[in-house]
């Protein structure tokens, strides 16, 4: 379903949540009908299906929620068991080679707000326990500095961006092994830093790679892909460089606003609900977070010059 809403009351947005594709409960579309992909909101997710081998690559859409079963047979499930923000449907990427997401309709050439992302159950189980082909992260000793990384770049007018957004679907590079993690919740990924885009390129890489390529299953799940829809007369917004501290925070965060004029700051939980609003004046601004429950939040700053969304942890 396509819907519009205002974030911080400044910009209209379109979110592709894939619910409009009417995937039956506990099922998936993997392109076996030869459709070549899926459209929702302002995105088109290309799919390549090989009917001879019953295999696919690119994107599928799914409502599968098996959080337990390991292995390829469970390739369509997300590890949270549902879509982002409690939805039923989400997209699954299978990209041994880099894959594309096309931005369509009035989002083409505009700025991408971001998307929710998490691991597929197949990947989560493989990273946690290993399988016949891939290693459990940490290796035999638990000390291997493993990582499973998604790198996103943007195409605009046929040019690939030099900037990229990195997201670690699993990160075991910490000296203290207790900090090692595998993403298992839907996590908001801010893509505003990519600037304007006609399409995005997704590239998975893993420390568990050999001559035959990556051993880690090349999957991830995506939902609520959100684009900004500017009027053509409006210049695209720039990604703001907003500095805030401390992170993690306990009682308050300080946001340095070094631009002219004011800006609006909003704190969102991972379900996308705004839990705090604040106006930023030039200089240092304190925002109390003392009453927020512990967890991961997003700090979103919007101004005439652009916007910024960054993640922080409330302890």
């Amino acid at each position, binding site marked *: 379903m396509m819907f519009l809403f205002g974030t911080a009351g400044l910009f209209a947005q379109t979110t592709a949540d894939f619910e409009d594709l009417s995937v039956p409960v506990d099922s998936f579309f993997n392109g076996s009908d030869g459709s070549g992909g899926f459209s929702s909101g302002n995105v088109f997710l290309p799919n*390549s299906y*090989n009917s*001879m*081998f*019953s*295999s696919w*690559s690119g994107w599928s859409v799914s409502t599968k929620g098996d959080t337990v*079963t*390991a*292995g*390829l*047979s*469970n390739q369509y499930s997300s590890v949270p068991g549902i879509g982002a923000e409690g939805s039923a449907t989400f997209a699954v990427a*299978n*990209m*041994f*080679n880099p894959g594309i997401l096309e931005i369509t309709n009035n989002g083409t050439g505009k700025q991408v707000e971001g998307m929710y992302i998490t691991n597929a159950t197949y990947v989560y189980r493989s990273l*946690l*326990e*290993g*399988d*016949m082909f891939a*290693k*459990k992260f940490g*290796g*035999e*000793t638990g000390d291997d500095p493993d990582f499973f990384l998604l790198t996103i770049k943007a195409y605009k007018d046929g040019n690939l961006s030099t900037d990229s957004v990195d997201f670690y679907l699993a990160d075991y590079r910490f000296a203290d092994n207790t900090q090692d993690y595998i993403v298992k919740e839907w996590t908001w990924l801010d893509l505003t830093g990519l600037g304007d885009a006609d399409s995005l390129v997704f590239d998975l890489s893993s420390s*568990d*790679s*050999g*001559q*035959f*390529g990556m*051993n880690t299953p*090349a999957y991830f799940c995506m939902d609520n892909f959100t684009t900004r829809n500017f009027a053509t007369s409006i210049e695209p917004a720039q990604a703001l460089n907003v500095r805030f501290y401390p992170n993690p925070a306990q009682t308050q965060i300080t946001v340095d606003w070094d631009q002219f004029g004011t800006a609006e700051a909003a704190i969102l939980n991972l379900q996308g609900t705004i839990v705090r609003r604040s106006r930023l004046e030039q200089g240092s601004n304190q925002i109390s977070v003392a009453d927020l429950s512990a967890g991961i939040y997003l700090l979103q700053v919007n101004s005439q010059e652009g916007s910024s969304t960054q993640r922080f942890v409330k302890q």
Partner: protein
Amino acid sequence: MKHYKGILARAIVALLMCSHLLVQAQTDSIFALDSVEIKAQSLRQTKIAGHQQSWSAQQLQAFSGGGLDQLLAQQTGIFVKTYGGGSLATTSIRGGSAGHTAVIWNGLPIQSPMLGQLDFSLLPVGFTDELQVQYGGNSAMWGSGAIGGSIMLNNQFRLERASKLQYQGSIGSFGQQSHQASAQWSNQKFGVRTRVLHHQADNDFWYTVREDLPQKQQTHARLERRGLMQELYWKPNDRQSFSAHFWAQDNFREIPPTTVSTRSEATQADEALRLSLNWQRLGKNSILKARAGLFKENLLYLDPPNLLESNSQFRMLISEIEQTNYLKGGHQLTSGIHYQWTDALSGGYVDAVQQQNLAVFVQDQFAIKQWQFLASVRQQLTDFEILPTVWNAEFNRSLSTNLKLNGKLSRNYRVPTLNDQYWSPGGNPDLKAEQGYSQELGLVYHRLGERSSLDLEVFAYNRNIQNWIMWAVAEGENFWSAQNIAEVWSRGLESRFGYTIKRSQQVYKIQGGYDYTRSTNQVAIEVPQIEAGSQLFYVPIHQGFVGLYWQWEELLLSYQHRYTSSIVTVNEPLLEGYHLGYAQLSYRWQIGQFGGFAHLNVDNVFNRSYRVIERRAMPGRAFRFGLSLDWQRPHS
């Protein structure tokens, strides 16, 4: 005329020897025999050049109960790629792939047509009466796959008026237990033998990850093997003999997790039914052999947590006729025809597939003064498609009483396996056969003194294979597919020495060997990422061994030390090289009609932590005690 008859009689005896119908108790007339040994092997097994090794039934006894993989790893220059503890074990001979080893049972190939290879851990040594390893390409004789080398497993039987019962058992570390019983009866015309075996192991060994970390225990690695071999031998007259061999075996094994995975619930069950029939007829100046085989195998792989169930099966019917004619001028001309029909079905195939192979071959062996020559040629059609004509030319020349020079040129090939062609996804029905040329030169020195013997052998070889089949990711695809993309250049050196001294009741022996193997892919490949000129995966460059033996009457004490250099693997830059020690103490006795053989083996004497394959644990020090008892009684 009388003199001429004597020469003829000796010539016929020689023919019988050549045909491997060995006369054990010879009288003036070759047609009055007390006992005759019948071997079901091919007429083509004889070769005059190249490196080869063989083991008699008695030599194989120390490995009874185990798989052939253990023997090959400990006694040959073959690199055995083993997943450890009775798991899958394949071979690399002279830098070849697992599919480049032909495995011949009683003259017929038994590699899986689906995989083009055989799991040597599933071949029980106890069902083999004679083993021979021929290094180097031999496609002209054995057909597809004989590129790196060939391994021959033969059954043989002595027709005599006797009954024999035998039990062989062994017990060892990690829950290993093996029992084999054999009963046979024969007179001079009929022979029947039944062999049954049962082998099991828990393989719950401990292994070291890093010295400062606690050891880990292998889990989910239990295996069980049951087998039956029934043989019938019939020699209705002096010119003909028949034999029938039925080999049934089922194997169950748990597939252990890798060292970087937490658990595994995967299992594999392999069932094999093999029937071979052999007929031999001696002509005046010829030997005719016909054989047929019906093989049926089934493999079931289950991995319940991953909802994986893979079932594959094949049936193979093989028939072959070969004849050797002894012609004027000393020519031994062997010609024959080979037909093979295969039917295979797998969850990985869209439909059942059939394949037919038809091949004709000719071989001539002759001598000119000090030179011996052997030349052979083979032409195969696969599903009516003509494959490359393969040939072999070899020579052997005595340079002095003790020194011989031999050499060989050959063209060899391997047809794509059924999985290469029909697996979905990735199978490619348009694949070409791998093919290439090899050259080999060897020097063999043998000196037998009154109390000592000295053996020195050195072989150098060179081989190029084009259209090497590799599973790779094609551009624009996200799945692996079989492609003729690699070209592999293999070259190396094999050297062996042995020195034996006999003193009174004692024998001292030292043996050693060193193999240098360079096997490089000459073409850069993107996925898998292989640089041009890089060594193939799982082919060690250096292998060496030294063996020390002391025998006092029937007591034998031996120690063998083997070194394998580092190996290029798929995920790690290099797998470390390793040293392994093997010790054995054995004693053989005979008291009247009762015989016995007891042995104690210690494998990995120094308890070294090592890996043959990355992410796969290998056992530390392991003990195995074996006892063989037999009773033999002649009857009227």
